């Protein structure tokens, strides 16, 4: 592979670039999905290619191709340089990449069971069992179960001397039951909506016990049809781990992306209320709120050896004791703050440039058991499993909906509630947090579908959380 990377980098250097890098990527996905007792999709996808990114003066260019040949590498490198020169006709600020990145080495996701080594027969049998269990309740109209396996081989090299090779495995899946009445439809998912996914092997799927939870999920979907709607008002909200993971993603992960802060996502993904004057000078949440970005925790969808600029995996505090302390950064954006990159540049394939993306952005565990949080709550609602999510372009005003909710009365969980929604303003919400579950309840979730950039890139990010309690939250915004 180094012959290909050298060819591109040497040519780029000869053409006068300040900096160049190349990524050669070969990715395989396998999807197995069943629905109502039949195979719904059984597919295998392979994609290979390379992308060359160059900096000419202070202007960037990028070109990519699916055809990995010496001739094509030379053509694509030349195109990337030409594009950078076109970029220079509408110039911006000086680009400083900070210290050179010269990482070298090999990384592979620790895997106990290669997910591609499990036969399709075994995968189908596993999924059909879960699918059947959900339909034991005859009120379930649609039952679905699926798995995904991903293997990515990635080689990175740059003109500063970096050369890294990585093999990343991802495994995941989930089950969902849909119940329908004349005027309503309700869905329950497990372990999470939008898929449960992490870096790891088949063991990651087995540990979630789809089959053992399937009958309960079917029953809950049907029960939701006749459950009362979440009443509107202001109340105490206890948010389950998986919903809180998405809350963290939207209201902490995205606003700490430094490219948003500098305005380069303004037209598409939006900007951020966490402007640079707020760093080390803004109360983001209550004193028990500690948020961390890392790319080193086992099974995280943001876990790797090096990012797509060759920067090593690391851990960064974003919020400490409620104070906003750090950003997700690239080499170029970090240098504008006089800092070094914390390795958050990621691309979703060979044909896309790296952007600042979340790695694993997590809420650190607190001191409470879940039972104690409920017992300590006189009146409120417990909710979990995301159903809808929306937040404004600077990440302040949000509204989420969940699949399921339960009334809390006098320290005990009460009746099932449907169509639960809640909303608020990000710092107000996090400052109202007065109880966080302990390590026993902490779980690292994956969000496999985070969209950002033009052309759109879909990235997997990790989010750890335990259940937590928030006071005076507006709930029940539903027509």
């Amino acid at each position, binding site marked *: 592979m180094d012959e290909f990377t050298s060819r591109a980098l040497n040519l780029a250097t000869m053409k006068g670039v300040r900096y160049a890098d190349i990524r050669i990527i070969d990715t395989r996905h396998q999807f197995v999905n069943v629905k109502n007792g039949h195979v719904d999709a059984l*597919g295998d996808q392979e994609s*290979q290619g390379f992308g060359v990114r160059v900096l000419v003066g202070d202007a960037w260019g990028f070109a990519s191709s699916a055809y990995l040949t010496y001739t094509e590498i030379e053509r694509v490198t030349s195109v990337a340089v030409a594009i950078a020169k*076109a970029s220079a006709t509408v110039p911006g600020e000086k680009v400083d990449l900070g210290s050179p990145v010269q990482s070298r080495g090999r990384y592979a996701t620790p895997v106990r069971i290669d997910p591609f080594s499990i036969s399709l027969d075994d995968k189908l049998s596993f999924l059909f069992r879960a699918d059947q269990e959900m339909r034991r309740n005859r009120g379930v109209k649609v039952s679905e179960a699926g798995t995904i396996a991903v293997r990515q081989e990635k080689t990175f090299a740059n003109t500063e001397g970096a050369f890294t090779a990585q093999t990343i495995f991802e495994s995941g899946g989930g089950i969902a039951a849909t119940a329908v009445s004349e005027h309503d439809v309700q869905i329950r998912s497990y372990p999470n909506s939008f898929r449960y996914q992490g870096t790891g092997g088949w063991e990651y799927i087995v540990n979630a016990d789809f089959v053992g939870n399937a009958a309960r999920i079917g029953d809950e979907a049907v029960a939701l049809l006749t459950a009362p709607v979440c009443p509107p008002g202001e109340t105490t909200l206890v948010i389950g781990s998986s919903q809180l993971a998405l809350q963290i993603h939207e209201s902490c992960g995205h606003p700490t992306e430094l490219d948003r802060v500098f305005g380069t996502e303004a037209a598409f993904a939006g900007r951020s209320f966490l402007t640079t004057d707020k760093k080390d000078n803004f109360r983001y949440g209550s004193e028990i709120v500690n948020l961390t970005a890392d790319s080193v925790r086992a099974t995280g969808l943001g876990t790797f050896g090096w990012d797509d600029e060759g920067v090593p995996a690391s851990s960064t505090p974003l919020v400490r004791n409620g104070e906003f302390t750090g950003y997700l950064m690239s080499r170029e954006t970090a240098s504008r703050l006089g800092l070094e990159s914390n390795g958050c540049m990621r691309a979703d394939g060979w044909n896309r440039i790296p952007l600042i993306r979340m790695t694993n952005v997590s809420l650190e565990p607190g001191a409470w058991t879940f039972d104690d949080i409920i017992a300590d709550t006189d009146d409120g609602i417990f909710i979990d499993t995301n159903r809808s999510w929306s937040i404004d372009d*600077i990440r302040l005003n949000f509204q989420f909906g969940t699949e399921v909710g339960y009334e809390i009365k006098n320290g005990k969980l009460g009746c099932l509630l449907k169509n639960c929604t809640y909303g608020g303003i990000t710092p107000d919400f996090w400052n109202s947090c007065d109880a966080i579950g302990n390590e026993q309840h902490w779980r690292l979730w994956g969000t496999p579908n985070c969209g950002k950039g033009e052309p759109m890139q879909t990235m997997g990010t990790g989010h750890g959380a335990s259940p937590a309690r928030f006071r005076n939250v507006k709930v029940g915004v539903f027509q």
Partner: protein
Amino acid sequence: MNFRQIADSVLKASAAQETEVVIMAQDDSLTRFANNSIHQNVTESNVQVTVRSVIDTRVGTAVSNDIRSESLSRLAQRAYELAKLQPPNPEFKGLPLPQPLPSVAAFDQATAECAPETRAAVAGTICREAAGIGCIAAGSVTTAAVRVCVANSHGVFAEYQTTAADCSTVIMGSTSSGWAQASGWKVNEIIPEELAGEALTKVRLGTEPKDFPPGEYTVILDPYATANLLEMLAFDGMGALAVQEGRSWMNTRSGRKAMAGIVTIVDDGLDVSGLPMPFDFEGMPKRAVPIVESGVVMDPVYDSFTAGREPGKSSTGHASPPSPAVRYGPLPMNLFLRPGSTELNDMIRTTKLGIYITRFWYTRTVHPRDAVVTGMTRDGTFVIRDGEIAYPIKSLRFTQSYVEALHDAEAIGPRARVLRSGGALSVPPVKLGKFRFTSSTR
């Protein structure tokens, strides 16, 4: 290899009873700008070959972007092996037979060959217009050439090439912002001065926005906001799979008048004023399909699988792009909201109290059966009082059934705008009698 050769290689190598091959080749280039300069500038060449193998009623799908001859044989074999492993699915009734295909011409050589300097010039014009009055522009300029081929072992062979161009910008002042977008299949029809001018008008009009209480108001939507109504209604169930599974807003409404009589929504893949495509991803012909006609909800759109589940139904030419991951079901990708006769100014003039909205942002379904959607307004929200735009306000969050919103449609503008989406949308401004805002932002 040309598409015919790729298709023939796959079909010849396949041992399945039925085989389908879908080939998509694209040359996409995109120039992004922000802070009045180009900061990202990319191009991509790729081809994707998707093979569906059918043995009895069992279907396996394999996808690759390796078009070497030996790789195509392996791809066909992989799809066959995946099909072989499955239990039968009696709901699958087979791949479709060939049908006569309409001809559509929507290919522009200048767009296909657009140089990075041309995209940079468009971006540069917008940045200079913004910088000239102390504002900051961000946005993107896209040009693409796409070729699609669908072939199957029953003799379907459909091939089409087209181009696409899109430019969008948000221009920001110190307290306000404005948005403009243009899409089509000819890059030369994108006029950057006009886009900059449109966005800057909203910047000027939106300076120093005030707080405004949430509640239920009459709204007037620019085409960008109207586009979101159609997008979400399509997503929430204009396809037959959603209706068959009971999760569509069309469930219980088909054949009923659920929207105002001025509302007619049609999916038409042949109309060259949009971004046309003469056939779907099973090679079935496109035609104009009414979704809502004078307020009456008609039928959803079908592909061959969903049509096979209902007696008397046939594909309407709406098979979605093939995916090895999931069966998305049929989708309308060329939606037109038929224009009305009321100019935007007249909509405003006849409004006592209302809100004028440039566009919606981050809209998500809260409940699909009534297409209840939440989202924010963005890049220009204004109060209308006594027939005039009174003052700008801060962005508002809404939670609203889009079906009910169109039930209360009072006027539709006479000119539609084409906007690139997952497919394309053709949308005029609309006036809606009632729209529910649930909170505001800072």
